[in-house]
């Protein structure tokens, strides 16, 4: 097999060929679905635009390597271009398999209630996955709270599937093998190429975003650090790593494009894992996943990337 140019060898495309969408140059995107469990061999090819007419967004999904390349082509950024190897390996991102496992998990009847997550409302109605991630965190009527993807998934797994918050399916948040990372990677990948667009219509969404901004600039601890210490300049490095600037949306979209496969960890990592790592480096207390503080921070950082396309799943150092 030749991988000259890398693009034709994209796992993203392979994955979508095997799974849901087929997108070749000059062809209409099509979707492939297995009809029922009783007829596993029955495979239908239907134009994607017909099947997902309620979600025209699916047409705009783009392979993460294409999104990144376009950002690199249109901007001068030492951050975006810092790892040639990672850029080259984007089409073979191991996170693509994690996403595939997440899709199976999402559709599988599980938990004490033996239900799938296909009635889970991630913000655009029950079962809608396409395009939901770039519009999170958002306010949910049923809980009266602003929720991010992880806390919303935990809510759906407990309220729909009947899991206890202490069950490993809900409690285990880190590692490519965790249900949470598989589900998050699947759902997020269905927003690749779409512009970040977290809603700010509800007063709570605005309040959380504004509190998140305060948190981002809030210096504390034995090193006087805040998030802004490292993330408010362009092209600066910590040791050999070029840092993304929150004030440059074309850089910031890559910075917040989680889940991402972290080469150094050999694991797919989440936004929460990034927040935990940053607070650890800042010598400040451990951030609690699903807390309103963590969600506020995400509301601010997602708003800062508004309009720029998401790179999902991403690959980072």
């Amino acid at each position, binding site marked *: 097999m030749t991988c000259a140019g890398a693009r034709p060898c994209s796992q993203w495309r392979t994955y979508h060929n095997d799974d849901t969408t087929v997108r070749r140059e000059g062809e209409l995107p099509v979707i492939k679905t297995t009809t029922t469990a009783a007829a596993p061999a029955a495979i239908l090819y239907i134009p994607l635009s017909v099947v997902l007419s309620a979600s025209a967004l699916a047409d705009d999904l783009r392979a993460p390597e294409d999104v990144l390349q376009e950002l690199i082509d249109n901007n001068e950024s030492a951050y975006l271009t810092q790892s040639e190897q990672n850029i080259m390996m984007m089409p073979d991102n191991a996170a693509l398999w994690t996403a595939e496992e997440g899709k199976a998990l999402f559709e599988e009847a599980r938990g004490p209630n033996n239900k799938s997550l296909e009635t889970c409302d991630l913000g655009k109605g029950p079962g809608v996955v396409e395009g939901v991630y770039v519009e999170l965190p958002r306010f949910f009527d049923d809980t009266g709270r602003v929720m991010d993807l992880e806390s919303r998934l935990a809510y759906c797994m407990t309220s729909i599937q009947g899991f206890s918050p202490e069950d490993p399916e809900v409690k285990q948040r880190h590692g490519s093998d965790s249900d949470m990372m598989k589900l998050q990677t699947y759902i997020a990948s269905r927003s690749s190429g779409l512009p970040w667009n977290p809603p700010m219509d509800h007063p709570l969404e605005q309040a959380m975003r504004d509190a998140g901004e305060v948190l981002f600039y809030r210096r504390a601890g*034995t090193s006087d650090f805040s998030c802004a210490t490292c993330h408010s300049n362009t092209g600066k490095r910590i040791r050999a790593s070029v840092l993304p600037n929150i004030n440059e949306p074309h850089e910031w979209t890559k910075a917040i494009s989680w889940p991402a496969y972290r080469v150094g960890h050999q694991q797919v990592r989440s936004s929460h894992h990034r927040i935990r790592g940053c607070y650890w480096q800042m010598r400040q*207390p451990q*951030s609690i996943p699903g807390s309103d503080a963590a969600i506020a921070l995400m509301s601010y950082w997602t708003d800062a990337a508004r309009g720029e396309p998401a790179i999902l799943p991403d690959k980072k150092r």
Partner: protein
Amino acid sequence: MTHAQPACTAAAAAALLALSAAATAAPPAPEAAYTAMSAEELADYLIFEAGGFDLDAETQDGGTARERMTQDRTQKVCSAIARSGKDLDRATAAKISALADETIEFPEDGVALGDWQRGEEIARSGFGYRIGHRVDDHDSRTPGGNCYACHQLDPNEIAYGTVGPSLTGYGRLRGTSEAMLKHTYQILYNPNLFFPCTTMPRFGHHGTLTQQQIADVMAYLLDPESPVNQEPAQTAEAESAAAD
């Protein structure tokens, strides 16, 4: 130590939150409480009252994580300035500088250079004071200063940060006068004296570097024998460029 207490509106809002939680079994709707607070009050509330962080964890310095998260005056003022995007005005800068001046304690025997080799270890080490999912054990290893995270020092080290200015040739350019020793000590102890609201940590003020460690880092910066003050090794590229 008192932690930052949200203003009375925040306290009232929190009481409202507690009330609504008691009234129904469903998760409390924080809308009224959250939107009644300013962004600063809400941020403090999310940190200290709403379970945003593991605040009861113990820290290496014998305190709690809650104390780590509690801002002092300098941190509070400099955070607000950074968030506003405005330049630091002269009056505030003078205040921050004066606060720094008050904190600086000099060694009883006067400011002197320590051992540059120990200073190099401190400059290279990013170990120390991290808490949370992995706690740095100071009994197993001495904390470092992590200077290379932000500064270039030894011209032959390529993995240096650029958040701070290059300090290559620091002593070669400045000499080792008593005034320069004192100046360097002050910067390492509390850089806000000369650079109000700088991103650089206050190593002496926080006690994350001891007076001896500061002296060692000073030697790494100023000692003529230190690699920081040597000419960079000539690379083949540089030699051919010089020959042209």
